[in-house]
Structure formats: structure tokens, C-alpha cells
């Protein structure tokens, strides 16, 4: 009897095991694929990888644009049972008005943004309140640690990190980072299991050609000139004349990169490349270069400017001071309009136009920034009877400050037209250099002999008897030229007697230039001559910049050298 019972029991147990085995086989072998897919769907979720834009650094590696982590707070109004309480907490944490938040929370919308890119600490505190219907999305926020510094050049991004201005816009493809998703395993409690790899996407970084120190020096000087002469706007650009690297590009008015929406659109415009103006006397260097290259003048050629004026068609052009017969060099040194028009008249329209184009006027410089204007240079076939004379002295043409700076850089470097650029290198997130920008010297537009002759004349401009003695720098020779032009009065369409543009462009040390610099001041009050308004700004910036760059004075003597034995150094 007992044996029979044991047999039945063991048979039942074995049958039970058999059933379990069959079911297991069914689950693990026959339905494996379907069930495995179901498990994957439950355990694995696709998540967006955090995308960090690449860093933007100055030429010495100092950060100008970085990323910080932030949270964007959103609401699902239909899930909020107590909108008043939730809105009060959100209002406190985000600084938004209670009424606006409450109105959003009471709306019948499915999803609302409460606050984008909120600082992590505040967001964590808000998270801790456990508000119903309120969620948080981690995001990367662009931040600009130097605030206003080089704002026009760096540019900024929008709330979704979309590029809007400057190098942020121009180099977005390199900076933005790859948008990708990864599969992450999570358990029933929502805890993440490690994937064993770093799930972040980082864009490539940019090393700019600008130097924070030089940029700061330039911007400070512009602030002072705006304040002193109550000017509407001002621009300064500093460039290495041998390779076109922009060392500083400052513009006023300006704005804070961390709050671009708080400023007028006009303050955000990079006037250094977008605003053409009539260059006036600074353009005389083109006339002089053309005349020297065509061998129609020599430095010793004499011009009679004793009338103090010259009639060109219906136009009468005056000199600011009366002189008698002067040499070609003195025409430029004293910025004689009458003399320059006589010089220009020795060259035909077509040739003159060729030289203007050779110097890059009328076409974009190719600087790697968005929004560059080409300026205005009309075809010589469309010139009026007065155009040649007007253009000789820098009217009837419109140039950007960067174009005029490039022309002077050509004089400084022996006649080569460089391509200005603001990005030196593109580097990967691990520091590997991916690309270097070194366009080098461009086209040879004037002979080295002509460039050197012009250089000597431009040096005389900043010396005794010249128009820009206030541009001089203690310890080094400065070569350059002033410019003073009237702006067109928009009401009358005529040249204004109240609105002027004062400018100075030059390079220093003249014999071995370390940089070329242009300063343009728009609509200064009380004083308007380039030699009085812009030239001192040039001197101010150049003096500090030379010290900052550790450039020795021309009168540097051996007493200032401390020699140490090699083994003691």
C-alpha cells in the first residue's frame, strides 16, 4: 500500500517537474525572441546624450565660452490638482510672476515650460519639494565668463543652444557636438545600470587669435573715448600685419553675452565688419601707393597747394591749413586734400580703380565672422566728373574698419594683402589639434620699395609737423594716418556740419611692426579731428599693448639687459 502511494506521489512530482520543464522550454527556447524583446523594452530606455558645445578659448588658452549644467523646468497642467500652491512654489523658485505661472498652470495645455536652463542648485531645491505635475530636464547651458569682453566677436547662442552671432554662428558645425541617443538599462525602481562608457557628446573647441589682455586694453580705451567725447559709437581692431591674426576686435556700444536679450539689436552689431563708412584721409595711402607704383611721383615731387583749395567740377575742396609748394611726402604728412587730389589726377580712372580693388576695397576681406559687408566701390565707368578727386581723399567710397586696417597692414608687411581671421585652431575635446588656420601672406599688391616709402611717410605723420602727433608712443616709432569725415545728414541728404567720423590707423613699432591698429570714433562731440579724437586712443592702446606684449622700446639700451651665465640661469 505504502509502495503504491509512494509511486503515485513520485509520479505526480515527476509529472509536475515535467510540466515545469516543458513550460521553461517553451519560454526559453520557443518564445525566446518574442519574450527577450519584451524584456528589453521594459528594461532598456533610449535616452538623449548630453550635448556640450565646444569651448572657445583665447590665444593663451583662457576660456571665453564654456558650458554649465542646468535644468529646464516644465509643467503638465492637467496633472496639477492644486495650481495655486504649485504656482506659488514655482514663482518663488524661478522669479517669475505668480499670476503668469498660475495662468499657465490653469491653462488646458498639455505641456508648458516654466523656466529654461535654471541654475542647478535652485533646481535641486525645487526638485526636493516634489511638486505634482512639475518635471525637470537636465540641459547644458552656454555661459560666457568674461561677460562683455569680445562680445561682438564671440557671439552667443539661443535658449536651445542654436547659434545666433559671431564665431558661435560661423563655427557652429565644429562647436555644436553630435546629437546622439544611447540605450540605458534601468530596473523597476528606475535606477540606471552602468553602460560602462562615457555617454556625453562634446563639440570641438576653438582657439581664437584674440588675446584677452589686448582685447581688454582696447575695450577700456574705447569706453574712455566714448565718455570723453560723448561719441555715439567707436571701434578698435588690432591685427598681426604678417599673418592676419586679429588680436583684438572691440566695438562700442556693447552688450553682455550672458544677457543678450537685455540690449538693443544695434548694440549687438559687430560694427567693425558690418558698418562701412567714408574713410576720408586714411584712404590717401591708396592714392599715394598707386602714384608711387605707377612712378608718376617720387617722394621729392613738388605740388603747389598755395591756393588752399582746388575746384573739381562744381566742387571746391579746401585744405585745413594754407601751405605753399610742398613735397609729395608732405602732402601725406600734412594730409593736404589739394595736394592729394593733384597726386590722384596723375593716374587714370581705370588704374586708380585697379589699385583700390587690389587693396581689397569693395570686396569682403574673408574674415571668418558672419555678416561682413563688402563696402562700396563703384565701377570706374560709373564715376562722375568729381568721383576721381573725391575718392582720392576718401569720399565716394565706403569701407569697413577691417578693410582699412588690412590696407595699412599691407604697407606694414612690405606689400602683402593678408586675410584677417579670428580662429587659430580647432581642437577636439581631448585636446588634439584638428585644424590650424594660417593663411599666411596673400597677394603681393605693391612692391616692398613702395611699401617702405609709404612707411617712412606715415612715420612722419606722427612726428613734428604731422597731423597725428598725439598718436605717438613713448619709446617706439608709430606709422599711421588720421581721417576726419563728415557723415551724411539723413534729413537733408547733404554732408552734416555736426556729425563726424574721426579715425586713425597705423602700426607700431614702425620698423618691425608687432601689430596694426585702427580706431574709428563715430559722432564725437566738441572735437572731431582724427588727430585729436582717435589718435590719442591709438596711442593709449598701443602703449599698453606694447608693454603687455613685452615689446622693447626702440631706445632700448644695453644697460637694461642683465646678462647671466648660462649655468646660473
Amino acid at each position: 500500500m505504502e509502495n503504491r502511494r509512494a509511486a503515485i506521489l513520485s509520479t505526480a512530482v515527476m509529472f509536475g517537474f515535467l510540466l515545469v520543464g516543458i513550460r521553461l522550454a517553451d519560454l526559453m527556447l520557443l518564445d525566446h525572441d518574442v519574450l527577450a524583446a519584451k524584456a528589453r523594452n521594459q528594461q532598456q530606455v533610449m535616452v538623449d546624450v548630453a550635448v556640450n558645445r565646444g569651448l572657445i578659448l583665447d590665444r593663451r588658452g583662457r576660456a571665453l565660452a564654456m558650458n554649465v549644467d542646468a535644468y529646464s523646468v516644465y509643467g503638465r497642467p492637467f496633472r496639477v490638482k492644486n495650481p495655486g500652491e504649485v504656482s506659488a512654489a514655482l514663482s518663488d523658485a524661478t522669479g517669475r510672476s505668480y499670476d503668469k505661472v498660475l495662468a499657465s498652470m490653469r491653462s488646458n495645455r498639455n505641456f508648458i515650460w516654466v523656466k529654461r536652463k535654471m541654475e542647478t542648485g535652485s533646481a535641486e531645491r525645487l526638485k526636493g519639494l516634489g511638486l505634482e505635475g512639475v518635471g525637470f530636464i537636465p540641459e547644458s547651458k552656454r555661459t560666457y565668463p568674461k561677460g562683455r569682453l569680445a562680445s561682438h566677436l564671440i557671439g552667443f547662442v539661443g535658449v536651445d543652444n542654436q547659434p545666433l552671432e559671431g564665431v558661435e554662428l560661423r563655427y557652429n558645425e565644429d562647436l555644436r557636438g553630435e546629437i546622439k541617443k544611447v540605450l540605458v538599462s534601468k530596473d523597476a525602481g528606475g535606477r540606471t545600470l552602468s553602460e560602462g562608457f562615457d555617454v556625453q557628446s562634446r563639440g570641438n573647441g576653438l582657439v581664437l587669435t584674440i588675446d584677452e589682455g589686448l582685447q581688454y586694453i582696447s575695450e577700456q580705451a574705447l569706453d574712455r573715448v566714448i565718455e570723453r567725447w560723448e561719441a555715439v559709437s567707436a571701434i578698435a581692431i588690432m591685427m598681426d600685419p604678417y599673418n592676419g591674426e586679429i588680436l583684438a576686435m572691440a566695438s562700442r556700444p556693447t552688450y553682455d553675452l550672458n544677457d543678450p536679450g537685455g540690449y538693443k539689436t544695434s548694440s549687438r552689431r559687430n560694427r567693425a565688419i558690418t558698418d562701412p563708412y567714408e574713410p576720408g584721409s586714411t584712404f590717401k595711402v591708396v592714392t599715394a601707393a598707386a602714384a608711387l607704383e605707377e612712378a608718376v611721383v617720387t617722394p621729392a615731387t613738388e605740388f603747389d597747394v598755395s591756393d588752399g583749395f582746388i575746384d573739381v567740377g562744381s566742387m571746391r575742396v579746401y585744405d585745413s591749413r594754407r601751405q605753399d609748394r610742398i613735397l609729395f611726402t608732405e602732402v601725406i604728412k600734412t594730409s593736404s586734400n589739394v595736394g592729394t587730389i593733384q597726386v590722384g589726377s596723375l593716374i587714370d580712372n581705370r588704374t586708380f580703380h585697379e589699385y583700390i580693388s587690389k587693396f581689397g576695397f569693395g570686396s569682403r576681406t574673408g574674415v571668418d565672422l558672419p555678416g561682413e559687408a563688402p563696402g562700396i566701390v563703384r565701377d570706374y565707368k560709373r564715376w562722375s566728373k568729381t568721383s576721381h578727386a573725391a575718392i582720392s581723399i576718401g569720399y565716394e567710397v565706403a569701407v569697413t574698419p577691417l578693410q582699412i586696417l588690412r590696407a595699412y597692414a599691407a604697407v606694414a608687411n612690405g606689400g602683402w594683402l593678408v586675410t584677417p581671421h579670428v580662429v587659430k585652431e580647432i581642437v577636439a575635446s581631448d585636446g588634439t589639434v584638428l585644424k590650424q588656420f594660417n593663411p599666411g601672406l596673400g597677394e603681393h599688391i605693391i612692391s616692398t620699395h613702395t611699401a617702405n616709402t609709404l612707411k617712412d611717410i606715415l612715420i612722419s605723420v606722427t612726428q613734428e609737423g604731422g597731423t597725428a602727433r598725439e598718436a605717438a608712443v613713448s619709446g617706439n616709432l608709430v606709422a599711421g594716418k588720421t581721417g576726419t569725415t563728415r557723415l551724411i545728414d539723413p534729413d537733408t541728404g547733404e554732408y552734416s556740419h555736426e556729425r563726424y567720423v574721426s579715425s586713425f590707423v597705423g602700426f607700431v613699432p614702425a620698423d618691425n611692426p608687432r601689430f596694426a591698429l585702427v580706431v574709428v570714433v563715430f559722432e564725437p562731440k566738441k572735437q572731431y579731428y582724427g588727430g585729436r579724437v582717435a589718435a590719442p586712443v591709438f596711442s593709449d592702446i598701443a602703449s599698453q599693448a606694447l608693454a603687455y606684449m613685452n615689446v622693447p622700446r626702440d631706445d632700448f639700451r644695453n644697460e637694461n639687459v642683465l646678462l647671466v651665465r648660462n649655468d646660473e640661469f
Partner: protein
Amino acid sequence: MSVRRMHEGGRFVSVLTTFLLVLTLFAGIFGIVWTVSGITMLEYQIGELENRKALALKERKSMEAELSSLLSMQHVRQKGLELSIPDRQRIIYVKRDFVPVRRASERN
């Protein structure tokens, strides 16, 4: 007697072998479960550490941004921390050479 002993000895070996096989089987299953559970635990731990690392990195990014802002020339000057450009007339250049050091008294 000897046949009976032999029979008992064979049965003992058989039971022992069965026992060892079952033990090995269970030990194997236990080992696999142990290993899998250990891997999962490790994944949790690594996940936790990665979260902590992510938090630390977040903090580092914020600190770097703050540091960069504090080191800006604008900030240094605003705080009156004596940012000044050197006077080039008072700069002495130090150069390597194979000549003896000139004493200050000799230079004057």
C-alpha cells in the same frame, strides 16, 4: 562476506557519486546565479559612482566658469587688485650668456 562487502562498497561509491554530482550541479547553478547577481550589483555600484562623478563634473564645470570669471581682467581691475601694465622704461631684460653676472653696483 567479501561479496556482501563489495556490494556495500559499490553502493556507497554510487551514492557518493550521485551526491557529488547533485552537489556540483547545485554549486554550479549557485555559482552562476552568484556571478550574475554580483555583476548586476557591480553595475549598480558603477552606475551610482557614475552618477556621483556626473554630479562632481557638474560642480567642476560651475567652479571652472566661476574661476574664469574671477580671473578676468575686468574683475581684477574692478576689485581694485592693482592690475597695472608695466612701465617699459623700468623693465630689465634677463638674458642667458656666458659672461659673469653684473652686479647692481657695477651697473650704476
